[in-house]
């Protein structure tokens, strides 16, 4: 009896589809490398990213400074690695905040329906009509630049996608037989949502999170580039590009290295997100 073959629509099936996709493996490997580099930065390259050296200014890449030094003689590799920590922490924190708040809004709108749903949906449309960067810029300008405010600003720009992605499956799920059956068993609305609806839409929300994490990192870099991000001398990729930009002709490595770091991270997250989406989205399943 226990040897019943696992059906094709089994919940476990998507891991197999994900594993058989080489691009998503590549994305996953890249992102793991970036995270490891950020976590072990002080051991990989034990140089203080804040220490200035007036003699060794704008030195070209060499054995002592593999990525050269900046205007203040600070080691670019050390700054790059430490900036990865800031960028990743801000990105992940902002996405986590957007995921929790946005999904909660979307689920509430989808489950309750009626005028509440209509009101929330129109508000989300308003939020979506703002360009991400402009919205983030307005929020940071209002709240003032600090890491917490940056997280809030970025989270706010990505609330709407999460709310939308959570709302649609909630509407579909609340009409499903097992939710109806749960109602017939006397389960409260809260229990139906938390126990029966949320686990069934989690996979879709996680895919969105992986895709929008890249956008969050990009937004953070953009805000720091404009000068509304984390305050100097704390290294961030966006801030490093801005500082390096002034000397782009004499010392191109200053802007190119953090630019490349952003490129790799965003690319890795997009590959990973695409792979996850392909594995989970029934419309692109091939097997």
């Amino acid at each position, binding site marked *: 009896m226990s040897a019943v073959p696992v059906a094709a629509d089994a919940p476990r099936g998507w891991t197999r589809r994900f594993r058989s996709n080489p691009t998503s493996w590549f994305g996953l490997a890249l992102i793991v490398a970036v995270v490891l580099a950020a976590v072990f930065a002080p051991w990989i390259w034990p140089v203080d990213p804040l220490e200035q050296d007036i003699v060794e200014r704008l030195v070209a890449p060499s054995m002592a400074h593999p990525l050269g030094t900046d205007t203040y003689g600070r080691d670019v590799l050390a700054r790059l690695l430490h900036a990865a920590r800031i960028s990743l922490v801000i990105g992940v924190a902002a996405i986590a905040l957007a995921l929790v708040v946005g999904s909660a809004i979307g689920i509430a709108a989808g489950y309750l329906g009626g005028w509440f749903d209509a009101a929330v949906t129109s508000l989300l449309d308003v939020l979506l009509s703002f360009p991400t960067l402009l919205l983030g810029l307005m929020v940071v300008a209002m709240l003032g630049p600090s890491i917490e405010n940056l997280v809030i600003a970025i989270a706010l720009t990505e609330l709407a996608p999460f709310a939308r992605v959570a709302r649609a499956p909630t509407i579909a799920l609340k009409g499903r*037989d097992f939710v109806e059956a749960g*109602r*017939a068993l006397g389960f409260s609305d809260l229990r139906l949502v938390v126990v029966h609806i949320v686990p069934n839409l989690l996979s879709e929300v996680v895919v969105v999170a992986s895709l929008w994490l890249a956008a969050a990192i990009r937004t953070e870099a953009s805000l720091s580039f404009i000068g509304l991000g984390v305050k100097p001398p704390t290294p961030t990729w966006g801030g490093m590009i801005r500082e390096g930009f002034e000397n782009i002709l004499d010392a191109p490595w200053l802007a190119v290295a953090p630019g490349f770091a952003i490129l790799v991270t965003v690319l890795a997250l997009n590959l990973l997100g695409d792979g996850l989406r392909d594995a989970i989205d029934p419309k692109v399943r091939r097997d």
Partner: protein
Amino acid sequence: MTDAPLLQVENLAVEFRSGGAWHRAVRGVDLAVHRNETLAVVGESGSGKSVTALAAMGLVPKETGRIVEGSRIRLEGRDLVGLSERELDRVRGDRMAMIFQEPMTALNPTMTVGAQVSETLRAHRGLGAEAARREALRVLELVKVPSAARRLADYPHQFSGGMRQRVMIAMALACQPAVLLADEPTTALDVTIQAQVLALLEDLKREYGLAVLFITHNLGVVALIADRVAVMYAGEIVETGTAAALFDSPRHPYTEALLRSMPRVDRDIGALEPIQGNVPSIREIGAGCAFAPRCPHAQDRCRAERPTLADDGAGRGVRCWVRGLA
């Protein structure tokens, strides 16, 4: 009957909104199910039998439907009409439970079977995880899921259709309700599994003295499990009686026609005769008998005046001017 019915529906009417107007899908239904009794409600699609069951559970969708004032739904003597959702939640799954037609979709694909059966117990009995698991195991063994202890951690997709329906029954019966509503619970199963599930329901009914309201369009199933039968047509009961009486001597022309359209192994009924025409839409029911347009015996009175459900005082009732009991 010496004991009071566990579930008693009186004058139940349910309306649905469609195109700006309210239309009655159920028009004054009276039902009573006693302890250790199966009442089968039979009818075609659209006859209002499922809506009757949903209304009894308080599950009529609020946006589009409503129970008309004057309806009574008494569960163990307590009127459920007008109770708040919270009060209904306490009753549903505890004193009264329902099983549905589609075992393939009525279980949550992301939860283990053990967790789903435990959930009913945790919600109503406030049991802890371990106590609920033990109780869930007991109930799964009760509904004869083989090697239940091992299968607690399995997911619904690892179960066959018949096994899933057993799990559904386990979820419904976990808190030992007094009344079980079954809305075509075997329709999606193949015939041998269907017979097993029906036999299981019969056993459970006897063991716990359940009152079972069994909704079906399958007269073969009715013959197998029903003590009493209520035949529904266009939102009202047209004939009631014991299963034996109804099958042996149908009175209402609709019941008769229904039986003639079904093949029987126990006697020769000649060629099968389909019933001409269609069930009227709830928007086009006139003043008279709803079956009159399809009825071979229809007279002028049938078209003008709605017949009453004439009762012989012994549980047999027929709603017909021509072939009634009077």
